[in-house]
């Protein structure tokens, strides 16, 4: 597995979505969408519902036609190739198992559709079921399975046909939290072992960070940022990405003064220094990751009244409300912090370099 290093554009594209546009009944869902995935990469399309991520997935699968643009797979245009000849398989949110068939018959479906000789089907099916640890359920009707088992069958059903690209639409959303985490780890290693190229569609940022090499954060039919999980978290390119990926404290302010590459920003809760050189008078949104805020004074300091101290096991989350304004600040400290009282005054401090600044949208 190659390491994926951010958004470098020279990466040879395996899947290349070029200038794709789509409108439903006059409403533009996306326009001029570009999106590239390298061979063997696990990528997530992350965004709120209605951002166009599922539409993009369906266009790649050939289940929805694009109004404009091209889809290239391994250099070959497949834009007008029907879904059943693309060899791109989809795992649906509902799994879409065939209710009238048994587990084994579901897995065999793609092989039968491809006219694989009868004698070769059974061994392939049992191998695929073994892979997802569902061999004991081969002859059960799928309706008798639990959500996790259904998902395993859905995965076996697509892996057995050895697709050139695997698309997964919210594959974990129907599972409870614990099972979801187990299945994410399992599925990721299964896909890695087979060097499968896969695209996950999800609205869950933790899931996206857990399963993918790179994440494309989508908003209103556009990709806001396409980067590795760590880059996305550390250097979100927009306030939307910052908000959507991980928790953060947000404040509004206006640039008061610029000294070299440090700005003085006037907020309702006091002066905040941040890196950058936007014009004086620019309205901005400031963000700080909660784990980068410490108790006590720092390069930036805001005094807050403690509204809540939530012990979350490995860390304690402190919710503060600033004195001067009603800005809510979030601070995460490692370990279990006791002896913090609500209503107590504390100082939150953080470094200038950890302050994220975005021009406010008007």
């Amino acid at each position, binding site marked *: 597995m190659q390491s994926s290093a951010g958004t470098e554009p020279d990466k040879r594209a395996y899947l290349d979505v070029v200038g794709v546009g789509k409108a439903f009944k006059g409403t533009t869902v996306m326009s001029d969408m570009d999106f590239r995935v390298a061979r063997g990469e696990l990528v997530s399309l992350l965004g709120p519902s209605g951002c166009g991520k599922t539409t993009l997935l369906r266009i790649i*699968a*050939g289940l929805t036609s694009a109004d404009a643009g091209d889809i290239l797979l391994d250099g070959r245009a497949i834009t007008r190739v029907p879904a059943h000849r693309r060899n791109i398989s989809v795992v649906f949110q*509902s799994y879409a198992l*065939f209710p009238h068939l048994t587990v084994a018959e579901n897995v065999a479906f793609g092989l039968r559709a491809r006219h694989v000789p009868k004698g070769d089907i059974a061994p392939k099916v049992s191998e695929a079921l073994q892979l997802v640890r569902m061999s004991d359920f081969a002859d059960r*009707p799928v309706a008798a399975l639990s959500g996790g088992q259904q998902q395993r069958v859905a995965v076996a059903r697509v892996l057995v046909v050895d697709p050139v690209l695997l*698309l997964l639409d919210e594959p974990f959303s129907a599972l409870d939290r614990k099972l979801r985490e187990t299945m994410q780890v399992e599925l990721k290693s299964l896909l890695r072992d087979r060097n499968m190229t896969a695209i996950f569609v999800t609205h869950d940022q933790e899931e996206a960070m857990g399963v993918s090499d790179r994440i494309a954060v989508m908003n209103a039919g556009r990709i806001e940022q396409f980067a590795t999980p760590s880059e996305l978290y550390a250097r979100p390119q927009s306030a939307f990405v910052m908000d959507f990926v991980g928790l953060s404290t947000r404040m509004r302010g206006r640039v008061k003064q610029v000294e070299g590459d440090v700005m003085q920003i006037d907020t309702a809760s006091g002066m905040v220094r941040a890196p950058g050189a936007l014009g004086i008078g620019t309205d901005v949104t400031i963000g700080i990751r909660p784990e980068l805020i410490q108790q006590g004074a720092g390069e930036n300091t805001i005094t807050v009244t403690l509204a809540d101290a939530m012990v979350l096991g490995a860390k304690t989350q402190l919710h503060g409300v600033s004195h001067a304004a009603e800005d809510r600040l979030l601070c995460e400290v490692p370990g279990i912090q006791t002896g913090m009282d609500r209503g107590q005054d504390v100082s939150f401090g953080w470094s200038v370099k950890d302050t994220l600044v975005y021009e406010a949208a008007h």
Partner: protein
Amino acid sequence: MRRLDHIGLLALPGLSFLAVIFALPLLLLLLKSFQIDGQFSLEEYRLFFSDEYNMSVLWRTLRVAALTTLLALVIAYPTAIAMSRANGIWLSIFLVAMVLPMSVGVVVKAFAWSIIFRTRGVLNDLLMSLGITEAPIRMLFTETALIIGAANVFLPFMVLPIYAVLRQMDSRLPEAAASLGATPVFRFVNVTLPLSLPGVVAGCAFVFSLAVSMYVIPSLIVGERQQTLSMLTARSFLFLRNEALGATISSILLIIAVSVVLGSSWLANRLGARS
């Protein structure tokens, strides 16, 4: 259990109504068919089945019902698929087109067909003006005309159950099949068709039951020339004054209807058990 009994009471008015108005007369009719001079006897049935004419009527009735069901199915299935994919105004148009004709009396519809089929009727005029035929073809009073007319009248009873099943089907299923490499034909044969079978069974049961016992449509389209079981029943009661024969034929019709209902629900259960 007590609660269930209370709720069961709600069915009482309907049950007693059916018992007095429907079940009791039916029972008397059944009894009559098994009696001669107050004694239990199968003689009426022996007489009925040994009569060649009666057998030809029975056979024609079953054949017409089966062909009507088949024709209705062939027309209804694509219609139901189109309806299951339609939305908004188109779906409303389809549903109205299905349901509205049901409010037109069957006599009116049968007459309409006789206008189309008669010697100097709409269809013959059309065929002759197109030069397809020189002399009018005799269509009215034929079995073909009867089957076409009956299939038309009973069509909604075939379309609606199939439509209901297809509408319920997860639209992701054919898509999943496509993404697994299945061609449209393979998808239809292996996904859509098997999943729609319960609707097909229900629709066939409805139409066959209706067609086997129809009276007005054959009376108006084929007339006395070719009798069916229900016309024979009416004739035995009204003209021949042979109540025993009428009761026997009614009972045979009842047995056919009951076996269709039981057979179709058994089939639907078997199909349903898998999914």
